[in-house]
């Protein structure tokens, strides 16, 4: 596990979302990356019963298949094994979710030396909402030590115009980077996709 950057990527002018994803994955292959399977990050939101604005975002990342990440609206977090999903089902009368509101990013996973690259299409139900690119630099767990290297790699992959900023909640992080930090980045993007207008393509 290392430091990860998750970023949105615009759909290319005159192209479909799938064509843009194909272009990015071909580029990764051209750089020498090998396909190592698929990946998925999903998020279900459990809302409290009527009159209570409270909610819990429950996320899973195929990179950590036995783990459930839960983040509330007031940013309390719980990292647990997936047994927690079944316990949440027991709170049905208090917190409930709709399958149709599930948002997920799904796509192919590539490895290039110490980097893992994932290009995913974000969808809510059957509606595609956008593209998320995740790049992980695996040998390092201190964000400040490897961010310039991660940036350089992403510029090589996505173009020089791309300048990834460290996620706002991680800028001053001095301790070890955690899988939860990646999940927080996904949640931030998922929230933006949920609020955004549905794209026409």
């Amino acid at each position, binding site marked *: 596990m290392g430091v990860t950057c998750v970023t949105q990527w615009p759909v290319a002018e005159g192209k479909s979302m799938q064509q843009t994803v194909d272009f990015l994955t071909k580029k990764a292959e051209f750089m020498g990356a090998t396909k190592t399977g698929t990946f998925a990050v999903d998020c279900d939101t459990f809302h*409290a*019963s009527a009159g*209570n604005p*409270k909610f*819990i975002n429950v996320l899973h990342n195929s990179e950590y298949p*036995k*783990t*459930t990440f*839960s983040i*509330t609206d*007031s940013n*309390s*977090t*719980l*990292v*647990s*094994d*997936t*047994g*927690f*999903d*079944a*316990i949440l089902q*027991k*709170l049905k*009368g*208090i*917190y409930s979710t709709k399958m149709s509101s599930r948002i997920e990013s799904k796509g192919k996973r590539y490895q290039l030396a110490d980097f893992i690259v994932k290009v995913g299409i974000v969808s809510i139900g059957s509606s595609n909402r956008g593209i998320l690119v995740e790049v992980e630099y695996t040998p390092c767990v201190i964000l400040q030590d490897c961010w310039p290297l991660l940036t350089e790699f992403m510029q090589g992959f996505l173009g020089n115009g791309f300048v990834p900023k460290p996620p706002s909640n991680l800028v001053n992080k001095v301790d070890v980077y955690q899988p939860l930090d990646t999940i927080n980045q996904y949640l931030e993007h998922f929230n933006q996709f949920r609020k955004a207008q549905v794209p026409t393509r």
Partner: protein
Amino acid sequence: MSSSLPGNLGSVSTTGGPNLQEYVLQGTILDQSAEALVHRLRALCDNVDQGLETFRDHEMVFALHTGGQTNNQVMLRARRSLDQADSPWQLRYLGQTDLSDKSRAVTVRSYLDALTSDTLPAFLNDIGFRLDHEFVAKGHMFRKGKMKVLVSKLFKFQKPNDLQNLEAMTSSRLVELSVVAPSGSENIADDMKVFAEQLKPLVSMDKV
């Protein structure tokens, strides 16, 4: 996360698997007789080659009212080992006792658990659960096949969060014999009854 706390009543993660149930028999024994029971269990159980397995766990029981007309209460149990500070917390959900078959010799209830980060108490508070009660359980754990036997002394807190000043609840120890297994494993109850018979007359185990 794969380890489990020694004092907990189970440690099986449940998602995607069959519905799990906990089969339980309980009894009590006076402190002065507990040593004799421990000797008996050492003779009967499997995990005694490496000496006695002890545990010291802190359990917090949280409750949340569901509201509405029935206003039921959901309870979740958060437990952590005090001896192994870096081990994960365990969250447990125990269902109502299954009363569909009154001839059953043991208590049967649905059982779910998950191992979690140490943010568990704060997380439960945030989603609306409130601390109902808490205690420290200290004692010995034995295994016999799938069965787990706990002999534990329960302590209450004199002040919240003050683990240095604990007060014994009674002059007895709680004896629990339990198995977590897929629902419908009825022969387990027979095995448990046979085992419980071997602990008589020191302790009489029964369903609650």
